[in-house]
């Protein structure tokens, strides 16, 4: 497969029943995944969820304990990494320190004996706007520049499948946005399949056609970004992808198109087609920006859920919007995002308020309430830090 031609188009990737166990822990548990050719697929999850391992399995840098990997319909499970039509942009860049930037980019081309490697390498460097630094050594470049070289080094090979391991992590926000749109343009132009691994939900949503949210070695939910955001199916997805207000209660009645849930004595309606479970104890939720804040009790109207009264505990102004944290007795804190249509916040700490939302915006989760924590513990900073440390330790162990 490492022949002398470029991939004409992206290839689809298929993972069938992948298991990956390391001594002491399981990184991936029974993963099935199909990524259609030419798509921009993002694997999103906290550190240690198995997304980088998935990427390494596809690249051929790890062997699955069980399962098969197919690229473009061909089984590559036992194909060595240097024979796979795959290139990776490594999180650590892994640029060869003893070669110039140009030689780094030309490395893959030379190995495949493609004509005019240097011309093509220059072209790729122009694409990432670094051609003027072609004769430098990688360590003479800034982190962001190194990342772009790593990108050029992978893209120049026109692989059927490009793997991106948090490739924009070291960039500042502005450059990050710029590279995001450049990546997207490159992907559109060349029609390659991109598999992008990231823990940045915003990056995943803006760039990818399809996002798969991964947690503890399994894919929790997969779909188009807006679908995933508007209709999360699990508490983990609801909290990892943006923020959610989650409530638990018993389904009291199920009438017509919606179910009614008793949340601490308040009846909350959720559309049936947006709820995963229709009976028993359920967890329901609503996105903070869907909530409306009023200082007077809203008139009960059909098709609207109302909570309140509650007290404003915290107001944080972030420019575009303001986040209010409202304590509602018996229910707990509820977070509300409000557009700043007027100057500054509309209510202040201590004010008595009601929140309401259209029934259509609510969603019901699959999780059992007791199994569904209010906030997924995996997503907090401390958990991520421990995970990262664990990852590092395993990495050291592996190496």
């Amino acid at each position, binding site marked *: 497969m490492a022949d002398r031609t470029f991939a004409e188009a992206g290839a689809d990737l298929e993972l069938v029943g992948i298991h990956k166990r390391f001594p002491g822990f399981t990184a991936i548990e029974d993963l099935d995944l199909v990524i259609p050719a030419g798509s921009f697929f993002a694997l999103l999850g906290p550190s240690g969820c198995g997304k980088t391992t998935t990427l390494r399995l596809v690249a051929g840098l790890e062997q699955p304990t069980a399962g098969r990997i197919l690229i473009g319909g061909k089984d590559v499970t036992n194909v060595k*990494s240097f024979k796979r039509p795959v290139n990776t942009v*490594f999180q650590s860049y892994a640029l060869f320190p003893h070669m110039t930037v140009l030689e780094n980019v030309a490395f*893959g081309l030379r190995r495949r004996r493609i004509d005019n490697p240097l011309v093509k390498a220059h072209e790729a460097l122009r694409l990432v706007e670094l051609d003027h630094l072609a004769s430098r050594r990688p360590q003479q470049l800034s982190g962001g520049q190194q990342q772009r070289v790593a990108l050029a080094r992978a893209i120049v090979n026109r692989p059927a499948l490009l793997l991106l391991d948090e490739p924009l992590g070291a960039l500042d926000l502005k450059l990050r946005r710029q590279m995001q749109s450049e990546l997207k343009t490159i992907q559109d132009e060349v029609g390659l399949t991109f598999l992008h691994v990231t823990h940045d939900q915003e990056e995943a949503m803006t760039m990818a056609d399809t996002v798969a949210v991964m947690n503890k070695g399994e894919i929790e939910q997969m779909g188009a970004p807006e679908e995933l955001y508007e209709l999360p199916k699990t508490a983990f997805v609801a909290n990892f992808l943006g923020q959610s207000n989650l409530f638990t209660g018993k389904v009291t009645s199920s009438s017509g198109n919606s179910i009614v849930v008793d949340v601490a004595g308040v009846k909350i309606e959720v559309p049936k087609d947006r709820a995963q479970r229709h009976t028993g104890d359920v967890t329901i939720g609503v996105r903070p920006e869907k909530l409306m804040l009023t200082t007077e009790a809203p008139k009960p109207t059909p098709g609207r859920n109302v909570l309140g009264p509650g007290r404003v505990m915290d107001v944080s102004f972030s420019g575009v919007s303001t986040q209010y944290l409202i304590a509602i007795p018996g229910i707990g804190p509820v977070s509300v995002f409000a557009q700043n249509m007027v100057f500054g916040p509309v209510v202040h700490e201590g004010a008595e308020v009601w929140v309401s939302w259209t029934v259509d915006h609510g969603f019901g989760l699959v999780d059992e309430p007791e199994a569904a924590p209010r906030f997924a513990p995996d997503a907090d900073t401390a958990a991520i830090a421990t995970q990262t440390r664990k990852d590092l330790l395993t990495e050291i162990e592996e190496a």
Partner: protein
Amino acid sequence: MAFAAFGSQGPAVEQAPRKRSWIAWVLLAPGLAYLALFFLTPFISLILTSLQAPVDFGDVGQFQPAFKIENYATVVSQYWPHFLRAFGYAIAATFFALIISYPLAYFIGVTARKWPLLQALMLTLVIAPFFISFLLRTLAWKQLMSDDTPLVQALKALTILPQDGHLTGTAFSVIFGLTYNFIPFMTLPIYTTLERLDTRYLEAGSDLYATPATTFWKITLPLSLPGIVSGTLLTFIPASGDFINASSSFLGSASTQMVGNVIETSFLELLNYPAAAALSVILMAIILVIVGVYVKRAGTEELL
């Protein structure tokens, strides 16, 4: 305004912490004194000795200050085969030590990373021979390779060695001894560079279509070059001046004498100090030239 801006910025950049301090000189003084006393002085003395002439009707070993540059021509014409032998043996020993040490260093530094205990054990084994005097170890090899030992008998039985052949006193045994004695000096520097080798570069190479062999030649080897350069220098320089392995009391014979042996005999037995000194100066000059060319070609200034 603009000039004022330059004025305030310029000196700030140039006048970096460049405070001249007498403390630095005080700290340097012992080192400088040591070099002056124990390197520069003997070196000058050596050069002066190499130009001395025998005292007329004097005893053996009696010389007087002179400017007898012919001493150099004499020793070169007399001992050039010993120079050739010294550098030939040293190059061969360096080569074999490299061939043996690199895989060993790679195993300890890269493959054994998963097992720190094994790594420590192997490093200890590499250093362990230093606990015994190298004279003893070389003598032990002489015994092992002498004529009636099972080793030699076996080689003769297998007709690898002719019936009247010997192992000791040959070029083989001298190169063997040199290689053996300098393997730790080759292994340790290579180990230190390989130990720091980031295996993610190897993964990147594999990801970019390089076979394991290509990855080794294009990535691992160039990245371990600093270790190879210091290892080869640490082996080649002392090996070319060595006078133990090639001496007749150890692994050599009259036909394997290296320039080190000639210098030793001239100084200690023949008491021909000017000849010995001239040989030393020439040996030093040749090593300097060889090392200079080598380091320049290996491009280590950039790597170190």
